[in-house]
């Protein structure tokens, strides 16, 4: 099934404007969410799906205010439950294109269990996780992605929890599409949003986002031009894993089962590690990499095909109907052990 129904309908020519709702946007001035909103609105026409067949589901958080600003169907639900609601919606309506917008707290703290299960079920939903490594809406407590030792309102002398890596977590849950992009890189966001939206099955896209009020510049290493060039590793299917400035190109290579960074010059094209989106093992290795020892991978880590939960559910229904006809309650009620009591009876 998937969203075929949607693709069937004939589609007007849309522009970004067509996806802007009439609601006041209520984020703080300077919030990274503005850029993401505009990137998503911009990417919508590319879907080739009638606007009325698109639904945005979110939980609670600054990020989760998102659906109000999209001129599509939308549901701003409760904290952490968007993946479950989206699952129910897809089972009821496999003809709709469903997006989930969530945050590092909404999706990985209170919503962690639903995230695990939507990923393993591979429900055909595009999940956009805005990761600002903080609880924004509740005014600045640390989140499950905050660095160990993070000083926040709720951790005046530093947090005691090791953070979860959203990509490693998603891969450990069996995700079929895992990617990462940045709020300050419009072009890359646009690419990634399209890739994620077109994936069949659950697409998990982490969007590094700036909360300029409670966790400003947490991703600065990827904001400042120079450090971005030095540390960002662009993943492209079929391309070798090279990064760094032209004058100091570096290569990521495997040394047995341990990744290493070497001067690009040192490795012949044979020794290069060529990115393969279909190799989940490689994706798991890449997901764990971060500065300073390693570059920061940006792009599609993994994209594979696997059975889709609601497709199987609907196939089972179709098969039952085609094999034995649609249900008939009267037939059912009178089936099996029954007995008559005639009016004289008793």
């Amino acid at each position, binding site marked *: 099934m998937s969203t075929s129904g949607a693709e069937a309908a004939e589609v007007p020519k849309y522009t970004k404007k067509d996806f802007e*709702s009439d609601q006041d946007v209520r984020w703080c001035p300077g919030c990274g969410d503005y850029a993401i909103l505009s990137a998503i609105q911009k990417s919508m026409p590319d879907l080739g799906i009638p*606007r009325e067949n698109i639904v945005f589901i979110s939980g609670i958080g600054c990020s989760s205010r998102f659906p109000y600003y999209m001129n599509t169907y939308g549901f701003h*639900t*409760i904290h952490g439950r968007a993946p479950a609601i989206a699952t129910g919606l897809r*089972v009821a309506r496999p003809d709709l294109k469903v997006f989930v917008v969530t945050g590092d707290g909404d999706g990985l703290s209170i919503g962690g269990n639903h995230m695990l299960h939507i990923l393993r079920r591979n429900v055909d939903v595009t999940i956009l996780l805005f990761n600002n490594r903080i609880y924004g809406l509740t005014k600045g407590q640390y989140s499950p992605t905050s660095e160990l030792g993070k000083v926040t309102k709720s951790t005046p002398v530093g947090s005691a929890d090791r953070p979860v890596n959203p990509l490693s977590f998603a891969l450990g849950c069996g995700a079929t599409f895992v990617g990462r992009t940045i709020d300050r890189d419009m072009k890359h966001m646009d690419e990634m949003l399209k890739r994620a939206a077109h994936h069949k099955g659950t697409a998990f896209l982490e969007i590094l986002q700036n909360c300029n009020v409670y966790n400003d510049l947490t991703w600065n290493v990827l904001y400042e031009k120079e450090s971005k060039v030095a540390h960002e590793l662009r993943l492209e299917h079929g391309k070798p894993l090279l990064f760094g400035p032209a004058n100091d190109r570096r290569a990521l290579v495997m040394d047995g089962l341990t990744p290493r960074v070497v001067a690009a010059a040192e490795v012949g094209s044979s020794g290069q590690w060529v990115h393969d989106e279909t190799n989940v093992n490689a994706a798991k290795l890449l997901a764990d990499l971060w500065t300073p020892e390693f570059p920061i991978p940006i792009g599609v880590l993994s994209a594979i095909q696997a059975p889709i939960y609601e497709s199987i559910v609907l196939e089972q229904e179709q098969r039952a109907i085609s094999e034995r006809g649609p*249900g008939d309650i009267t037939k*059912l*009620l009178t089936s099996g052990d029954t007995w*008559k009591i005639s009016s004289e009876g008793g």
Partner: protein
Amino acid sequence: MSETAVRGAPKALKELDRAVIRFAGDSGDGMQLTGEQFTTESAWAGNDIATLPNFPAEIRAPAGTLFGVSSFQLQFGSQRVYTPGDRLDCLVAMNPAALKVHLSDLKPGGLLIVNTAAFDKRNLDKAGYASPPLDDPALAERYRLHKVDMTALTHEAIKDLPLNTKEKDRTKNFFALGLVSWIYTRPLEPTLEWINKKFAKSGDVAEANTRVLKAGHAFGETAEIFAEHYAVEAAEMPPGLYRAMTGNRALAWGLLAAAERSKLPIVYGAYPITPASSILEELAMHKRFRVRTIQAEDEIAAVTAAIGASFGGAIGVTGSSGPGIALKAEGIGLAVTAELPLVIFDIQRGGPSTGLPTKTEQADLMQALYGRNSESPVVVIAPATPGDCFYIAYEAVRIAAKYMVPVIVLSDGFLANGSEPWLIPDVSTLPPIDIHFRTEKEGFFPYLRDPATLSRPWVRPGTPGLEHRIGGIEKQDVTGNISYDPENHDHMVRQRAEKVRRVAQEIPPTTINGPATGDLLVVGWGGTYGSITAAVERAQADGKSVASIHLRHLNPLPPDLGHILREYRKILVPEINSGQLVRVLRAEYLVDAVGFNRVRGLPLASEEIHDAIDQLLGSV
């Protein structure tokens, strides 16, 4: 029980108007199956019936232990039977533990049939018998004791069949069934048919069960020890086609009927939990009705998945038992404010916390009414009998869709597993479930209310031009836009409450069982319907000025209820909780209703209710 001799039977055939029988043995002894088959036979005989299965929380509790005892009780009669019965006319005890646990429920002079083979030292120890109870002369004095070596007789009957001892042993419950079937002159046909269907593939097993069943029957016929046996005439029941129906199956089938009549798919989101799991399992077998089951990761996902389905234009339904319903509270609150249809089945069980998973209780009424943050009103209804669950489920869907509101259905473990002969309805006579999704753009607002029901329009995503956003934050009436305006909030709180109040339009006049005015009114709800009715009819037979009413609608309450309550000098509210409905009635109508409350994980005994009536009337 009134007995009258009947001539010309090889052995004296006495006629009874009702009998209460309990089969008790190890979890492994197949007592549930035995009871179910005996029920079917009695149904064929045209009796009215009520059943009470009772099994341990453990899957296969170790053999011979007290906590491992499993039992199945039923009452069948030639008149209306309201309950499985309080005290037993006949107890079949397959081992010492069963005897130990259940003997106290057998009437003095009652029929006691034991499988002597199981009364060895090991089993006696496990049951905690210091001395062999069967040797105690008092037992034979107090009851009509029949010691039968069922195991030996079973093996004898099939010694030539190529089955191992364990397999042969397993058929002995059919010996008991055959014997008791003879004692109460039940037809064996239904069981024989069942055997052939069930064991079609394994001829020897079919043959074994058939022979053992007949052997048990013959044993009663011939053995000297049974001086008499009994007939229970067919009951006066409304004519028509009947089937045995359990509460959970009826809930499931009620949803199927609703799916067919509403022409909408139903999405049932559930996480397994006793005693609700069998609804999920039943629905999963009927995909042809476009009922889609989601076994969710937890109860929160189950209810929110159902909400997602309702948002998508399907009927979202979820089901669980008390602990799971507690987890759904926040989700139900979302449906309240999003004003989406949602049906929630709560199959109540003993609590608090994990409590008594396999036992029945009525203690979730307050949770259904108030178990959410803030002012979060929902509709609450409850079935009266296993068969009534069919109509309640259908009604729940109809109301949820018509008023765009969550409806909680309060069933319980007793209704869920208990069964009754059920007159199969003509589904076309059920009130229609008309769904109209809004499609006109002109003048559309997400919270523009229908003047009669106050329900907002239901829009299927996919409808061009009606794109809109809803959510859990307070919203402006009509437009549905986020609003923090104080007056609007107060207004919305009242709108949500008034919408639920309007459901009173759907409630038929309350039927009063007894005088329209008098000394005492007994008010009940849910699974206690049978016990209460039986007790009240007995009191009426005693000439007391007593009536009873049964509430299927608990929120809103029936519009005529306040008036009715004032027509009686006293009001008694029996419940399997510490007094919940009684508090609601006192608060709502300021009447001095008193509760009768026993929380034992069992249905209320009508005898006790009858005594409570006497007491209260004594003080009139």
